[in-house]
């Protein structure tokens, strides 16, 4: 209910200021995200890619904070920036990929990729533009993103997924170990 939000915003000056800050922050973060995301795509060096992606993710963490999802913001930073991207870096270094610049795809393919992305973007925007009024399901509260709240939901309602995701991890781990280990070749089938 954005209109309601705007009406609400008109009431106090303090909130008007907040609004300006919010909007500024939103656009600022968004711009960083989009630009860094584009750089991830277009910059050739893998290391640079990783760095731009980290920038992008940090900006995204900012968005999470804007969205009252403090817990997510923290987890996001930890998981992505702290773990995943480091993993990427490790692999890049391990495999010495930074030196071996891989030739880009042919121009036609690249143009096609851009065009396809563009069309996809336009179609999705077109489809979601004429969207409908979303009725919030619950009364507005800013507390939902708090650790306590999220934790309660996680360990109450989402206990099963939480538990079961351990299976996911263990299989991923088994896989990583299996692939990572060096052993000698064996016969086919």
């Amino acid at each position: 209910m954005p209109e309601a939000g705007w009406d609400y915003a008109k009431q106090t000056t303090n909130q008007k200021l907040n609004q300006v800050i919010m909007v500024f922050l939103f656009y600022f973060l968004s711009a960083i995200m989009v630009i860094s995301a584009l750089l991830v795509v277009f910059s050739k060096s893998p290391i640079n890619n990783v760095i731009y992606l980290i920038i992008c993710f940090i900006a995204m963490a900012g968005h999470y904070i804007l969205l009252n999802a403090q817990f997510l913001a923290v987890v996001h930073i930890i998981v992505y920036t702290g773990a995943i991207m480091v993993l990427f870096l490790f692999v890049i270094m391990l495999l010495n990929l930074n030196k071996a610049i891989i030739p880009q795809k042919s121009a036609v393919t690249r143009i096609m990729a851009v065009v396809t992305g563009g069309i996809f973007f336009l179609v999705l925007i077109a489809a979601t533009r004429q969207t409908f009024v979303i009725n919030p399901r619950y009364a507005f509260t800013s507390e939902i993103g708090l650790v306590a709240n999220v934790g309660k939901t996680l360990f109450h309602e989402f206990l099963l997924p939480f538990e079961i995701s351990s299976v996911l991890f263990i299989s991923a781990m088994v896989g990583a170990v299996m692939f990572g280990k060096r052993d000698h070749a064996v016969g086919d089938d």
Partner: protein
Amino acid sequence: MVEQIPNINLAWLVPAFPLLGFLVTGLANKRLKHNQAGIIASAMVLLSFLVSLVLFFVLRASGQNEATVTLFNWISIGGMNIPFAFLIDHLSLTMMLIITGVGALIHIYSIGYMHDDGRVNSFFAQMNLFTFSMLLLVMGANYLVLFIGWEGVGLCSYLLIGFWFKNPAYNYAARKAFVMNRIGDLGFILGIIVLFFTFKTVTFSEIFSQAAGFQAGAPVITLITLLLLVGAVGKSAQIPLFTWLPDAMAGPTPVSALIHAATMVTAGIYMIARSSILYNLAPFTLNIIIVIGLATAIIAALIGLKQNDIKKVLAYSTVSQLGYMFLALGLGAYSAGVFHVTTHAFFKALLFLGAGSVIHAMGGEQDIRKMGGLRKKMPLTYFTFLAATLAISGIPPFSGFFSKDLILSKAFEHSIILYILALGGALITCFYMFRLLYLVFFGEQRLAGAHPHESPKVMTIPLIILSVLSVFGGFLNIPSLFNGDSKFITFLQTAVVSKASEELSHSTEIGLILGSLLLLGLVIFFAYRTFVSKSIIPAKDEEPMPFFSKLISNKFYIDEMYTAVFEKPFGFLSDFFYNKVENTVLDPAVDEIGVTTARVGALLRKLQQGNMSFYLFAMVAGILLFIIFILIV
């Protein structure tokens, strides 16, 4: 049938004897020694003849005109009741007597004639089978039983024409005969079916009694008669289905005598005479028969002028005579037709047997240009042959005179033009018959190294009997002109309903006879001058000839025409269907469905490029299309 005639049930014996003969000679093929098969076969036919005679007298004694002998129900479904039954009446008795009588003589003759042949037993088996079929044909009490015999004789004719099966040309002739007959048979069977649906029965007596309810010229009757006529044309070798008969001379000579002169080819005449009541109702068909008959008579006679094979001459003369019989039928004088059948059976069988005797004597030579002077060497054969020639030429008082004159006078009654044409044909007949006689028996012997000799008794005795019949056969029916009472015609009158016609006055008749006799005499004289006095021997085949002669000696190119119009296109059509339609359209079309499917498969397979970026693109494209799809739909 009012009451059962005692002993008439013996009728089944008539076909049974030849059948028995067929089975014995056929199955015991290997065990029978030289003449045994011939003797058995002849005996069987002779027995049939005797039984027929007995039947003749039995029927006579009973005072009734006809009797039906039912053996069993052949087909009996729904409204269709077709018993396997025999009809014994004057017409069938006449035919039975001819078939068994002449047949017996020819069988006996064959004992001598086929003496040296290795497969004599098969020969007699087939001859007996023929006799059996022919008897079924004439005795059948309904069209379907008639049809059994009809096809049966066709089969035997096929077998016997191709008796010397090593020769491909003979086989071809045999097949040609069978196929042409089959074409006729198709018309015949269709005619029977139309009959069945018109009258709900195929039994003669029932049909004829119902036929009274139809107007003359009723379309359905015309249709029926036309279809039956097709059958008759095929079997009796009329235009346009006559070319098989001359070729049929490939068979042994007794076969030609029995099947292709005396009996089988007259089946068509028998059938039309049998259906006389129907034909009387169809004037249109009768006119067609006249045209066919007359045309056949003249064209065949013309062709006969230039034939050099002794049997071919006789064959064309047979065709020609059959044309006369057709003419008689067309004129509504069915009895006259049957009478000519009878006399023709005598003299034509005699001619063929005589020719056989000659061929036998000449060691298989059939070309009359190489014969000559046989009169001295084979006097008996000569005299019998002469008798037959006089008979066929219509010289009184030989049998041919009476029957042919009857037909000519009927033609005269109908129209003067018919008469003139028919008489013309008769004169030609006379000419080529005497040409044959002169060339074979007069002059000098032309074939070096041949030692002609008279045939053995077993062959000559039938010749003598037949020549007696040929000479005196005509007295069966002495017309009122000669103070006779037309016994034969009267006898048949109970079974065959001829069209009523005004009798010619005796003076006119005498005038006609005298005129024709005069012309015949001239022709004979002319023939004598040409072939005996001047000893002109017909040219060799290669020598150039004037157009008309060439046309005639090439049989009007009718065979060639058939080859060009039917055989070649048929072969072409067959090839076309097989090579072009079947193998380039239909079959590939089916395969093409499969191939196209596979081709599309191969095309789709190309999508699976193995390239990751392509897969990714494809997925995105798919998703995009589906988004657009669901947004639009």
